[in-house]
């Protein structure tokens, strides 16, 4: 069958996947069409509910890249701090890493290999 990829443990067909997604989309669209029809555009129904606080301007509400996953990086500070420190931007360090890895590989290949 065209599009059937054998993985050694099973198979994968993107064509079948696309057909399944389309069928699900049709079902979801049908269910949606049966929903509440009293929604009116450009009324208070369009306003987000933010516990009574005033809504920010649209331009001011955009979350910039630095603020995304702040919690993730904060929680993993112990991992990130040495990792960032390692990236010094210093050419000497770049060269040192090559030498260190070359020595390690030479030892492994020399002893085991």
């Amino acid at each position, binding site marked *: 069958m*065209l*599009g*059937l*990829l*054998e*993985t*050694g*443990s*099973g198979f*994968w067909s*993107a*064509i079948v*996947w*696309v057909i399944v997604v389309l069928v699900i989309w049709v079902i979801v669209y049908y269910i949606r069409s049966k929903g509440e029809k009293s929604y009116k555009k450009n009324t208070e129904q369009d306003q987000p509910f933010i516990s009574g606080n005033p809504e920010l301007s*649209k*331009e001011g*509400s*955009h*979350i*910039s*890249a*630095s603020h*995304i*996953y702040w919690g*993730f*990086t904060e929680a*993993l500070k112990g*991992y*990130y701090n040495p*990792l*960032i420190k*390692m*990236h010094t*931007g210093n*050419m000497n*360090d*770049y*060269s040192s*890493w*090559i030498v*260190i*890895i*070359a020595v390690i*590989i*030479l030892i*492994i*290949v*020399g002893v*085991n*290999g």
Partner: protein
Amino acid sequence: MNLLTHTPALIIAIPLLAAFLMPVIGRINKKTNGIFTTFALGISLILTILLAFKILSVGTQVYVFGAKSPVLTLPSGLEFPIRIMFQIDAMSIFMGLITATVSFLGAIFSLSFMDKHNGLDKYYSLLLLLTVGMFGMEFTGDVFNFFVFLEIASIAAVALIAFRGTDLGEPAEAGFKYMVVSSISALMVLFAVGIFYGQYDLLNFAALASVIKYSQLDKIALGLLIPVLAMKAGAVPMHMWAPDAYSEAPAPITMILVVASQASLYALFRVTFSLYNITLNTLAVGWIIIILGLLSMFMGVTMAIIQKDIKRLMAYHAISQTGYMFLGVGVGLAVLANPISLSQYGITAMEGGIFHIMNHAMYKGLLFLTAGALFYRTGTKDLDKMGGLAHSMKYTTIFFIIGAAAIAGLPPFNGFASKLLIYESVYRFNPLLSIIAMLVSILTLASFVKAFHSAFLGPKLPQFKEVREVPRSMVWAMAVLSCIIIFFGLFPDLIVKNLVHPAVMALIEQFKYTGTVLGGI
């Protein structure tokens, strides 16, 4: 004379000649350089496709320079080949197809992307030389000429990375860094070449493979080649040049640099499989490659998550994705000496790793081009300063979604197909490796959600009110890559069966590689 007999030489000769014609062509007007480069690389692409058909139907092609017949590898009375030759098997042409496609699309994208720059004759000359270097690394049949082509590619790449650096510090600094790491790698490669020549009086890959004894000196040569080729491929912890170089080079050059890195990866696989093969301790060397892959995958993606510069973010992802290739092919190498494991999952793991090279070149190329498109219109790479661009750059937004979904391994795109092959086969070797690979995919998706939200979603920002879609040539280059990604995703079996599997077998079956040159096939 049948011109098609000389296809291997023409694939390189045409861009090489075009590179040296650039200063003359540029005298006509500013646009002719780009058009002529696209034309030359278009011919190279067509010839590469023709050669691919020939290799996949007939078998490995050899082209001997200066011989009476280009297929005469062993003139009478000689035991080993002495002439410069190209030896192009299914693996070489697999890489050649990637190089030809990406370089051609890079030239198309450059037509508009570089239109505001001066010195375009130099830019296009260097782009063509970089392509020549990559083709040479992939097609050459001897270790010394591999070094020569590596140098051509590296020197061209250094100048291209620093191309915008006449009035800016960062591109020049990135170019300098790339120059230093390239010099280190070139010296170590040359040292390894010297070791081979000193021991065996041979430079030809196939001839060396037939006599290699895996002596202490051969081990030293291997110990020099693995780290420097892995470093040029961007493996952690020798990856630090990559974010600098990828982020500062013009976007179409970054796309081509990804393939240049993959050419080094190809050389690493060529050395371990075609040159040493089972003479080495495949398990130990396989694990070295697997560990380099794991480090690259995990550290690459975690560093990507915290980036604010869109091209640095993508550069760290390029490092991370290279880890998948190391992982897949590393598992294949680890079980190379065990025929049962090799047939049960080793070949599939290698198919996943090799297929991922092609997929990565396409989706990462597309993503770097979208970053270039954003830079072209907004003048910034800083994600903090972007927002709401989906309102005015609809095509770029769609292309970014396709590229991001593909790199994150979402079905039905091509990244999913190669990652699935890796997950399922590597799981049988060591489940933990597979689980880490899946975790990295999740983090990749998270990282691209951040990039997508920051650049494209949200309200239209006042400073970008005037922004509109990029010129047509840039849209076309991105559209072609998107189509390839979707096609490879929908019909991965066609690619795996016809391109990837022959490439994997070309690596594994060393006797065929040596036999083509030395006889017996």
